[in-house]
């Protein structure tokens, strides 16, 4: 196959839905063979739409896309032979048994008769459904159904596997098992995997590279580490006392913004997020900048940038609400007291 080592080649793809919604707006990227590639983005960003284009289910309104060197519009049938697709919505027949769902999948993907049975047993074992294999799917729990769905996507060991939020609704243990298997598949079967997820830890530990997509266009694409590095060292997150006058706050922000160590200050949920290169080192400078102003800080938190911050930086939205624990607040308070005393 003439894919030049690229499993996916998306070139300036646009999708406008009949209603006029522009779901994708000139997206381009490449995924080399055997990479696990993560697609992150808030709800409605266009992730599923992109996967639908790559799985030949939706013709793009503009641009070109190739899977394993085959055009997704002109060469639909051959593209489909190369792929496995676990859609965001469950796609299993709940009136059949788990076993029959897998048999159907093996048949639809033209698997050789001889390998069907061992392969079915293998994936059943993997997703922990061996014992329930002969029960009808409508007697399964939600998580069991999702596991079966994933098993269906894996059974024919496709060259490229599309997983649209594969671990949504699964317990942590199963999620880790699935990750483990996804990694193993990539190594043993030389599979390329494109997955979307809303779990940052999943993207961080699983994906070699990540693309962040928002409102139909690509915002960033790189390895998780590079993305975090690009964001700079860290964040100082702070809140002013409720009693603080807005003029004083503005004055404070103004003086902070003048400082060299401050890259950017954003406001989110009443919290100010100050971007700097090393939040721990720069904390004294932060307090210096506020010195002399009649302002009480309610709380200050230090944070090294996580993938969440990268996501937030590029999309302006947070994937999950993070609640800061009581302990964390206390810890920061005491460290602030310590800092005050030493000065």
């Amino acid at each position, binding site marked *: 196959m003439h894919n030049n080592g690229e499993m996916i080649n998306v070139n300036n793809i646009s999708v406008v839905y009949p209603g006029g919604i522009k779901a994708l707006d000139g997206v381009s990227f490449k995924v080399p063979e055997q990479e696990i590639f993560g697609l992150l983005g808030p709800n409605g960003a266009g992730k599923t739409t992109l996967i639908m284009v790559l799985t030949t289910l939706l013709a793009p309104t503009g641009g070109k896309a190739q899977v394993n060197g085959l055009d997704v519009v002109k060469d639909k*049938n051959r593209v489909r032979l190369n792929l496995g697709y676990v859609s965001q919505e469950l796609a299993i027949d709940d*009136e059949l048994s788990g076993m029959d769902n897998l048999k159907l999948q093996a048949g639809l993907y033209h698997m050789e008769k001889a390998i069907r049975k061992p392969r079915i047993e293998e994936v059943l074992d993997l997703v922990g459904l061996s014992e329930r294999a002969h029960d009808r799917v409508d007697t399964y729990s939600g998580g069991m159904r999702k596991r079966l769905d994933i098993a269906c996507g894996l059974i024919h060991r496709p060259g490229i596997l599309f997983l649209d939020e594969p671990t949504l609704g699964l317990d942590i243990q199963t999620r880790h098992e699935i990750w483990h298997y996804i990694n193993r598949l990539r190594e043993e079967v030389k599979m390329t995997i494109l997955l979307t997820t809303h779990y940052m830890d999943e993207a961080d530990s699983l994906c070699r590279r990540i693309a962040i997509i928002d409102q139909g266009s690509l915002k960033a694409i790189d390895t998780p580490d590079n993305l975090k590095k690009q964001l700079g060292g860290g964040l100082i997150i702070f809140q002013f006392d409720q009693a603080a006058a807005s003029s004083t706050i503005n004055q404070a922000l103004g003086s902070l913004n003048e400082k060299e160590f401050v890259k950017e200050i954003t406001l989110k949920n009443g919290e100010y997020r100050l971007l700097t290169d090393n939040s721990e080192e720069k904390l004294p400078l932060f307090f210096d900048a506020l010195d002399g102003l009649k302002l009480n800080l309610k709380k200050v938190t230090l944070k090294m940038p996580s993938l969440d911050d990268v996501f937030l930086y590029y999309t302006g939205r947070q994937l999950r609400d993070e609640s800061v624990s009581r302990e964390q607040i206390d810890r920061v308070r005491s460290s602030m007291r310590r800092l005050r005393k030493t000065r």
Partner: protein
Amino acid sequence: MTTLVMGLKGAYYIFWREIKRFMGQKMRILMSLVQPVIWLVLMGSMMARLTDNPVTAEMIGIDNYLAFMVPGVMMMSSLYTGVFGGISIIWDRRMGFLIKLLSAPIPRYSIALGKIAALVLQTIFQASVIVLLAFMMGITFVTGLPGIMLTLVICGLFAAIMSCISLFLSASIRTPETLFSVINFLTLPLVFSSSALFPTAAMPDWIQVIARFNPISYAVAPVRSLVISGWDWSTLFTGMWLLLLMFLVFFSLVYYRFEKGSLL
């Protein structure tokens, strides 16, 4: 692997799934058995009174209305099995299962082909039950076992035509309710303007004209001759030929719709 082989294999697995589902639906199997019983026993015995009257008996052209009814009931059950069969596409779409079928390496027409094949098999199963039931009620085919076999083929062909219509509609219709109302709108007039349940001689002239060109009439007539009068080759030939032609036309429509249009 050629596309045709992929298509046939795909159709086989779609067929296999539909049959598996059917076997799992005890209630559906039961109803498919009970329905003809109700038609035959209730309607049949009620209408049998008609033939007590010499005038109506002459109109029907036979002194046993039940024998007249059996082919009609067979065709009715074939019609309904076929014409509601397309609903499975709507359910597949709702379940998200259609996505799986559409992204699989099988041509799209094989989805339709597999479903049609499964509906044909269910129809043949139901028709066999009706034959058995009729036999228990004292009605035998004058053409014997070969006649019964040919009858089952005609029923299957008729159901295939009806399922093509249903699949064609369901490709664009998104809710079962809409499909039901469209189908009722189409089939009720078709049934009552056909010779399935009433002899055409008993109808007003203008309905007689419709009945003449009604596809149900063309399917019923050969079966009726196989039950009542014997090997009437010209009726058989006309009926079979027309049914086959209709199947080819409607399957081409479905083929085109599935291959070229969006199913999601």
